[in-house]
């Protein structure tokens, strides 16, 4: 069953979509057909709707985020939005049949369909049943598919177990996604992830490759005697942005030596406290190395 007021989402999308497609297409989309009609509609839908980006008012965007906490259709094209709407029309009363129907779409999907389907995980019924599918998606090597799962998607942080969650975060670093766009990143950070990222930093240093700055965001809450040397190394970096990242991690740490280290850089400490340096400003800084 749905864990949010799906009727409201159906209605709101049903209001937005007709603003973007012809009345004939809207009628076609709503018409119910025989068996196989759902699959056919899902697949050939872009031919009817086109693929132009949608115009989403700030008000509607906010409403969607309220109806399904954290879900956003910002940046969607009209075909993607129509596909989400279509998914929401699928009868969910028979759990096995519902899951089979959507799983079939996943198995035969091309890239845009995969993006749509993984992006829709937060609004599907029986959310606890999609964890395996989500973990499978994280194994994908297709950049846009990964992005649909990793960025601005509230599903993973709500439902994945720790191992799958950690894979998502690691994969985000490996494939250079915008880690700041991971929903629930700080809340789901954990010791295991921090340890793995520490190993990763050593691997990158051994290979003379840059270490992603945002990984220290995930380590910050778990700075301890074992990994403090890593933080000291980052803070000692000649690259000012890397140094700021290290100090930002110290700021978010409860480890006293990290606090002491931060206090040796009063200017940066002030800038952090006044909000001028944060994890978003770090990635926007022009001096950022390719990482």
């Amino acid at each position, binding site marked *: 069953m749905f864990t949010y007021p799906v009727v409201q989402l159906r209605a709101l999308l049903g209001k937005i979509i007709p603003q973007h497609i012809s009345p004939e297409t809207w009628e076609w989309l709503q018409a119910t057909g025989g068996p196989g009609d759902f699959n056919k509609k899902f697949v050939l839908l872009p031919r009817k709707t086109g693929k132009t980006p949608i115009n989403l008012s700030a008000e509607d965007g906010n409403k969607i985020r309220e109806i399904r906490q954290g879900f956003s259709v910002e940046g969607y094209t009209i075909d993607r939005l129509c596909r989400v709407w279509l998914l929401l029309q699928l009868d969910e009363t028979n759990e096995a049949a519902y899951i089979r129907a959507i799983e079939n779409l996943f198995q035969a999907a091309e890239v845009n369909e995969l993006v749509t389907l993984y992006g829709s995980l937060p609004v599907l019924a029986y959310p606890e049943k999609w964890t395996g599918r989500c973990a499978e998606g994280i194994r994908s090597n*297709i950049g846009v598919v990964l992005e649909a799962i990793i960025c601005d998607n509230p599903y993973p942080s709500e439902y994945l177990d720790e191992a799958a969650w950690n894979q998502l975060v690691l994969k985000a670093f490996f494939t250079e996604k915008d880690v700041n766009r991971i929903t629930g990143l700080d809340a789901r950070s954990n010791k295991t992830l921090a340890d793995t990222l520490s190993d990763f930093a050593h691997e990158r240093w051994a290979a003379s490759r840059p270490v992603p700055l945002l990984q220290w965001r995930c380590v910050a809450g778990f700075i301890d005697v074992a990994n403090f040397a890593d933080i000291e190394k980052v803070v000692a970096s000649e690259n000012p942005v890397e140094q700021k990242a290290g100090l930002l991690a110290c700021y978010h740490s409860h480890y006293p030596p990290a606090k002491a280290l931060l206090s040796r850089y009063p200017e940066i400490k002030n800038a952090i406290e006044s909000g001028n340096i944060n994890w978003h400003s770090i990635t926007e800084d022009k001096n950022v190395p390719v990482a």
Partner: protein
Amino acid sequence: MCCNGNLTEKDLQPGSNDGSYLETIRGMRFFDPHVHMSSRTTDDYQAMADAGVVALIEPAFWLGQPRTEVGTFKDYYSSLVGWERFRSSQFGIKHYCTIGLNSREANNEALAEQVMEILPLFVYKEGVVGVGEIGFDDQTAAEEKYYRLQLELAKEAGLPVQIHTPHRDKKKGTTRSMDIALEHGLDPYMVIVDHNNEETVKEVLDRGFWAAFTIYPFTKMGNERMVEIILQYGSERIMVNSAADWGISDPLAVPKTASLMKQRGISDEDIRLATYQNAITAFGQSGQIDEADFTMVRDIDQSQKFSGNTVLRGGQAPRIDKNDIIIK
């Protein structure tokens, strides 16, 4: 396979076509113990042959996206011992393979069960030199289950094991892979641990396993780092491979690395061990590698056929190996 981190426009520009490095390794023979030729073109086969690659191992892996049916696994394994072996022979290179269920696809348990059932059909075939590449990717419970089952299969078949170590959480994943192999009573001398780096090599060698290094641009080892590894650890139980596949990779990684080693003053014997002999010694424990075959396959006749098919297409003249005449 991997993601291609840190690529810049500059990296994607065509490199220099200066093939003079080939001069420094003229006459040397190479064995690439990990290369996914099914994803490569005939140009690659020709270039490899010209650079001195005489034999290779193609491990079974995933094809970039998950398969959904057992039949596609069967056809894939069958192509590794069939068409691809033939195709390779048409370029004068002896083709071996390892057969296994890769770690990523082990996560689809319903399918993995069916794949396990067909594996015995393939692992006993001629020219199958190991069970591979198997091991961990995400390090899930399902991956562990099928890794263990395949270790048992390798033990039963008396075959070496080719272990893929994970990209993410590599250090712990490598240690865990070795722990489990030992737990199943495998002799570390029968196990090739692949995709090592500076952080993993010491433990792998100390515990008596073979350490393979993948020279793969941007994501795994660069060959200058490889030279440093040889300088530090020597060449005992170390081997170099390309793991070239459908990503930005280099099927000439082994000869190029040999050339670089030569330039940096590493002895011919160490180069021979790391780029040829050690792989043969390790995978030869399968009883399936005969060096005499390498010479035999050099006598190329591209007009031969496999099930009525040939690598030649309408009107192409066969390229018969006559002292390295390159047809471009």
